[in-house]
Structure formats: structure tokens, C-alpha cells
């Protein structure tokens, strides 16, 4: 009997070793399946959290400080933020390998802003931002594949390779704008259209602390307030406008007060629930016809301004590490969920793995997809127009342009 047991045991061990070595994912999935099946009913479906109070300007009340988040919501936010983070880090890698060229402004560290805003508005609402746009392209409906292929300039890109990092568009998402501050009047124009059509939609216009000093933004504040446009102006204050800190660029760093006659909120942009709650408050303000509202999200970017900026000449590595350690948006969310028993470590790890895989696939696609065909060079000059002839680099080269 003992011999039997030992031989069975050894057989079992060898079988399991065989399984683990050859089918590692299977065993893990199996284990996870067993784990989650066992403890699914153990997770809390929702919990309430205490969040930081927002500073208010020309408002009678502030957004709520006690908010509720469900398990599903938490997992979805976690997944999206992790996807965003990994996508940006992958872009960093590809840029260093010279597979991505030109401008590349990375969004890691600011994920809570994009995901929090999207959580509070609908896909039928509108959004426009500046050049640090990869995160918003994702939340507004772009896929990681399309975004990465656009960065590498391939035909599978969201703009067929013709826009690049700064010019990504999707439904109700107006880019991706390269000129600092120009997107704010555009966003107010979209809000004007919302009011004109009377469809109860609003437009979120984002800009940075650097852009906040632009004249056209103040022109926009004036007209938006005058005509009571349903516009939410959001300043993503990541403390540095390229290499210039806010103290060196702005006479008043209270960006939420810069709208003067427009009510404002200052929000902790590293806490996704803070951002979500403030955006809900702002959206309700707009939809009730009270006119525009301003939000300042205090956030931080880990990378430099763009890939050509190491990001440490105007700030210390200690500062970056401190923010990463204390206020990383993904870690904050993860800690919240774990400490409230809304998810398990394994489950979140599983999400990490699946996200990693998705990014790998997308990067693979982005590096192997062919570049746009030369025939596409002159297309998309005009919309809904008959084909026209475009002069090439010399008088004998006549290229064709189709709408």
C-alpha cells in the first residue's frame, strides 16, 4: 500500500510539475477560477469612501465628500488605468527604439483624470484636449491597437497614420490638438452646438497649467459665460508647463479661480473618485443651464514634457519618487479596493497580466502593420468633393486626391 501511495504521489507530483511547466497559464487560471469561485460571494459589492473636499470658487456648495464605488466600477477603473499606464510605458519603450518618432507626450501619472472624467460623463457628451491625448483617445472609444499603430504611423492607426501622437480623433472626441490653448475655444464651439441642438449634451475642454495663461482661453471664458454654454473647462495642473514650474509662469497659480466670473473647483487629480465626483457635480451644473464651470485637477506626470525631455532638469528625482510612492492613482485605487475587500490581489494581478498581454499584442500589431500606401498621400484634403489633382514636388508629378 505504501509503495502504491508513494508511486501515486510521485505520479501526481510529476503530473502537476508537467502541467505547471508546460501549461503555466492553465494552472494559474485553474487556481484563480477555484479561488474566485470560492471567494466571489466574499467580496463587498460596494463601499463608501471619504474623499478630500474640493476648494470652491463662486459656488455655494462643493461636490460630495462621501462617495460610493461598486466593485464592478472599481475593477473597470483599475483595468482602464492600468491599460493606460502600460500603453504609455510601451510607447516610451518604442520611442527609445526609434519605432515611434516625432512628438510623444506621455500621460502616465495622470490616469485618474481621464478615467475619472469619463466615469462622470456619457459617450454622447463631447471632449477635447491638447497634445497629451493618448489617455483620452482610449477613454473616448479608441482601442490600444489603433492608438499604438497611429503612434508608429501605420495604416491601422486611428487616423490612418496621418495624424500621429497629437492628432487622434474618434466619435465625440475632437483630438488631440497641437497648438497650446487653441482647443479651448474649439471646445466652447462644440458646447455652442450642444446648446443650439438642445440635446442636453455638454463639452469638456481640457488644457494644462501652461496653456492656462493663453489669451484665447480668457476670450473663451467670456463668451461661454455670456452665452451660458454647457462647457466644463478643466485645467490639468501637473505643476510644470514644459520645463517651467507654475510659480515661474503664472502670477496667480489658483487656476480654478482664473475664470473669475465662472465658478471653479480645485480637485485632487490623483484620486479617481475625487475627479469623478467633481466632474459629476460640474456636469450637473452645466446641464441645469447655469452655464460653464471650471475645474482644476492637481495631478502629476512621471515622464518629462515629451520624450525628448528627461524631466529631471527642472525637478528632482526625489519629487517624482515621492509622488509615485504616496499618490500614484493606480496604487491608491488598488489599496482602496483591497482594504475594503472589493477585490483580491490575485484578481488584480490577473487584470495586470491580461492588460500586459493586450499591450503586447497591440505593440506587435503597431510594429508589423504596414505604413500607409503612397496613394493615400494626397487624400482627405476636402470632404465630399470630387477628386482633384494635387501638385507633387515637381511640375511633372500630378497626384490624385480623393475625399
Amino acid at each position, binding site marked *: 500500500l505504501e509503495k502504491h501511495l508513494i508511486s501515486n504521489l510521485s505520479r501526481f507530483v510529476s503530473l502537476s510539475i508537467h502541467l505547471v511547466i508546460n501549461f503555466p497559464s492553465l494552472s494559474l487560471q485553474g487556481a484563480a477560477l477555484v479561488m474566485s469561485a470560492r471567494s466571489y460571494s466574499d467580496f463587498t459589492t460596494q463601499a463608501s469612501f471619504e474623499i478630500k473636499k474640493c476648494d470652491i470658487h463662486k459656488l455655494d456648495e462643493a461636490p460630495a465628500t462621501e462617495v460610493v464605488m461598486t466593485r464592478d466600477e472599481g475593477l473597470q477603473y483599475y483595468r482602464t488605468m492600468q491599460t493606460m499606464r502600460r500603453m504609455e510605458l510601451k510607447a516610451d519603450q518604442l520611442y527609445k527604439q526609434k519605432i515611434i518618432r516625432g512628438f510623444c507626450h506621455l500621460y502616465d501619472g495622470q490616469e485618474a483624470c481621464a478615467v475619472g472624467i469619463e466615469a462622470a460623463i456619457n459617450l454622447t457628451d463631447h471632449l477635447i484636449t491638447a497634445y497629451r491625448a493618448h489617455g483620452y483617445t482610449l477613454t473616448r472609444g479608441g482601442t490600444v491597437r489603433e492608438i499604438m499603430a497611429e503612434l508608429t504611423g501605420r495604416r491601422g492607426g486611428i487616423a490612418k497614420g496621418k495624424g500621429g501622437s497629437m492628432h487622434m480623433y474618434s466619435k465625440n472626441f475632437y483630438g488631440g490638438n497641437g497648438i497650446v490653448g487653441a482647443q479651448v*475655444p474649439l471646445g466652447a464651439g462644440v458646447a455652442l452646438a450642444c446648446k*443650439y441642438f438642445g440635446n442636453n449634451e455638454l463639452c469638456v475642454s481640457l488644457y494644462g497649467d501652461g496653456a492656462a495663461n493663453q489669451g484665447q482661453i480668457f476670450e473663451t471664458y467670456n*463668451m461661454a459665460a455670456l452665452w451660458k454654454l454647457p462647457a466644463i473647462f478643466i485645467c490639468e495642473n501637473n505643476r510644470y508647463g514644459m520645463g517651467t514650474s507654475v510659480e515661474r509662469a503664472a502670477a496667480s497659480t489658483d487656476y480654478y479661480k482664473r475664470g473669475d466670473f465662472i465658478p471653479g473647483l480645485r480637485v485632487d487629480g490623483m484620486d479617481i473618485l475625487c475627479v469623478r465626483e467633481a466632474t459629476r457635480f460640474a456636469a450637473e451644473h452645466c446641464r441645469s443651464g447655469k452655464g460653464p464651470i471650471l475645474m482644476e485637477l492637481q495631478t502629476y506626470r512621471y515622464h518629462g514634457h515629451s520624450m525628448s525631455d528627461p524631466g529631471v532638469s527642472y525637478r528632482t528625482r526625489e519629487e517624482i519618487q515621492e509622488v509615485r510612492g504616496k499618490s500614484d492613482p493606480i496604487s491608491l485605487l488598488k489599496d482602496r479596493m483591497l482594504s475594503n475587500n472589493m477585490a483580491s490581489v490575485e484578481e488584480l494581478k490577473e487584470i495586470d497580466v491580461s492588460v500586459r498581454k493586450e499591450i503586447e499584442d497591440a505593440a506587435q500589431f503597431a510594429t508589423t502593420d504596414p505604413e500607409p500606401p503612397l496613394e493615400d498621400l494626397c487624400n482627405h484634403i*476636402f470632404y465630399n468633393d470630387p477628386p482633384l489633382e494635387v501638385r507633387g514636388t515637381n511640375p511633372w508629378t500630378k497626384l490624385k486626391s480623393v475625399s
Partner: protein
Amino acid sequence: MYCSSWQFWSSLHKGSSGRCPWLLFPFFTLWLFAPPPSQLSRCDWLCVMTRSDRVVNCSCDWLKSLDLSRVTAFSPAEDRFNMAASLRCFLRTGKNAVSALQRREFHRSLPAAVQVTVRDALNQAMDEELERDERVFLLGEEVAQYDGAYKVSRGLWKKYGDKRIIDTPITEMGFTGIAVGAAMAGLRPICEFMTFNFSMQAIDQVINSAAKTYYMSAGLQSVPIVFRGPNGASAGVAAQHSQCFAAWYGHCPGLKVVSPWNAEDAKGLLKSAIRDDNPVVFLENELMYGVPFEMSEESQSKDFTIPIGKAKVERQGTHVTMVTHSRYVSHCLDAAAVLAKEGIECEVINLRTIRPLDVDCIETSVMKTNHLVTVEGGWPQFGVGAEICARVMEGPAFNYLDAPATRVTGVDIPMPYAKILEDNSLPQIKDIIFSVKKTLNV
């Protein structure tokens, strides 16, 4: 042909819609006995027509060389009728001048044609398009309650209200961006610049946000917007208010740039521009606003459009091709009339569209006449004329040229103020005639 004083008086009476007509009596009796209009200063006449309190910059020298009795468009009877009609309009503010001018009892021309000023043609175009499509709206400085800085949008705010005719603060960059954003979100804005000089403040929004977007988004985002306003030199407004932007906007792919001359051009091209799904820069001319032109019955229809990108041969000729746009079409036609007496037949091409340029029309004409003269108000360097010359050189028409092409342009200086300096910094009829003769080597 000559209308009796009774007929003249009764036409005025009908036109004044019973609002104290008798008050007009003293003015018009004086008129009836006034010297024939041909001896009055044309500048004064144009002042009345344009309701302008500035003396219009007409280089009156050209008038002296013209034998007015042979210029058929302005017979004494028609002159008197037109002056009376416009004075009527002047006194009776707020009424649509076109309805007054449409009183055809004493008109000698084709039965269904009508005299319409460029201003009224633009007004009609916008009115018809606003009515046709709910998404069209107008925004700009003073377009609503002031009836338009140059009265081009007169009556529109009263008819369509605050939602569709929007007065903006004096913030070009801001409101141009708002107009472009609205176009991106599905509306069809007409963005008026008080003059195109002010569009320089907003040029980033026109080029980077409007013109390039359809390309950058690879067809995902179109921008159906019209930027319109007066362009080029006016009268006595000096350097910062007199620049021509045809070359600046004509340089950029993604834009269509249109430059109408007469009322028919204005109406047809503006309607096409508004119906076009792409950004169109519509360059008007302040000095042309008050000039009346005959509009055919066809062009009075609500669906009358002129295709963008097609030039028009205004006058057939055999010896030289004159290519021009906007106000200078008038100058070229007048120069052609003078040259015709010397046996030189000029073909005058009204470009109508700066971008895309109708090179085929120009080439066909040059291959017929073998000589080319371009005329424009803008500066010579990198201008419209320079582009035309380069295109002709690159195409088949080069082999047909008997002489190098000539450009007649504005003088390469910021616009001065003093009248004599201003008159001499823009092409005059005599300059055009001189250039043609030099090109033909006569």
C-alpha cells in the same frame, strides 16, 4: 428713354411707402433741375450708392479719360433712376433696397434682369441659406443688432433672432475658435471678420484648426465653415486696415479661397461656399459693396450657385489675356474698353476662385492670345500673380507666350493714408493700359 418728371416723381412716391412722401418733394425738384449726372463727380455718386460718409477711393483720373456717353451701362436716365432709388434707400433706412430697385417700370435692360448691389446679393445669399438649412448660423462683430458693420447682414437678426445671428465681443481668436468648434460638432457657421486684417489674430484657428483637420484626422472630422468679410484696400483706412490676404490664405492646402467681383459672383459663390462641406475663405471687397450690377433671372433663383474653382471669361479678346479677381475686374474691363478703341482686344478673366486656381481657363486663353497680364491689389512678392505666372510656366501655355507674363500689383509698401499716396499705391487703369501695351510691345 428719358423719363418725364411726373414718371420720375411717381416712382419715388410708390417707393417711399407712404411715409411722409411730400417731405421728399423739395429734394427731388432740385434734382430734376440738377445737371445731368454724368457731369457730377462719380465719387459723390458712389458715396450715395454706398451710403458711405467717406469719400470712396475712386481714382477719378480714369473717369476723365472715359467718354461717358459711350459707356452704355450708365445712361443719364439710368443714372438718375439709380441715384433717386439709392437716395430713397438712404432716407428710408431699414428697408430692403432690393425691393425698391426691383421696380422695373423704367428699366431698359432685359425684361427679367434686375440691378442688385453686391451688398444686397450677399444679404440675399445668406438669407436664403439660413432659411434652407437650420444648421447655418452667422456670428461676428456687429452682425446682429447693428445690421452688420457694412450692413451686409441687414435685416437678418430681425428675421432669425439671437440663436442664428450672434453678436460677438471683439475677440477674434476666441470667436473664430468657437465657430470652428461648432462646425466640427455639426453646425454650419458663417464666421464674419469685420475685415480680413483682423483675421490675422485668428489665423491659427483658420489654418491649424479648420484647414488641416480633415487631413490630420484622415477623413474622420470635417469642418464645414465659411470665413467671410471685406479684404484688401478700402479708402483712407491706412496700413493696418488695407492688406490683401488672398495670397496668405491661397497658400494653404485644405482651404478653398474665393474672391467674387460682381453681385452674381457674390451671391452664387457665397451660396456655394455655405453649402460646401469644407472651410472656405470668402474674400469680399468693401468698395464693391455698394456697386449695383445686373443680375439675370437665373441668378435670382434660390438655388443659384456658382461652382467654386471655375473662372469666368468676362470679355472675349484676341491680343492679350488679363487675369484678375475682385475689384480689379472692373478696372480691367474699363482698361479693355479704352484699349479697344486703339484696336487692342483684351480677354478679361475673372478668377472668382483663388484656390483651387482655374489654370485650365487661363492656359486656354493664353494659348489663344499669346500674352498674359495679371492684375491684383495685393503685394507682388509671393502673390496671386506670381502663382499664375509660375503655373503658366509649368504648363503647356508657356510655349505659346510671345512675351514674358506681366504682373500688375499693388506697390510693395504698407498702405499710406494721404489720398494722393493711396491712389498711387494701387493699380490704376492707366497702369493696366501701360502694362498691356508694354507686354504687347506697342
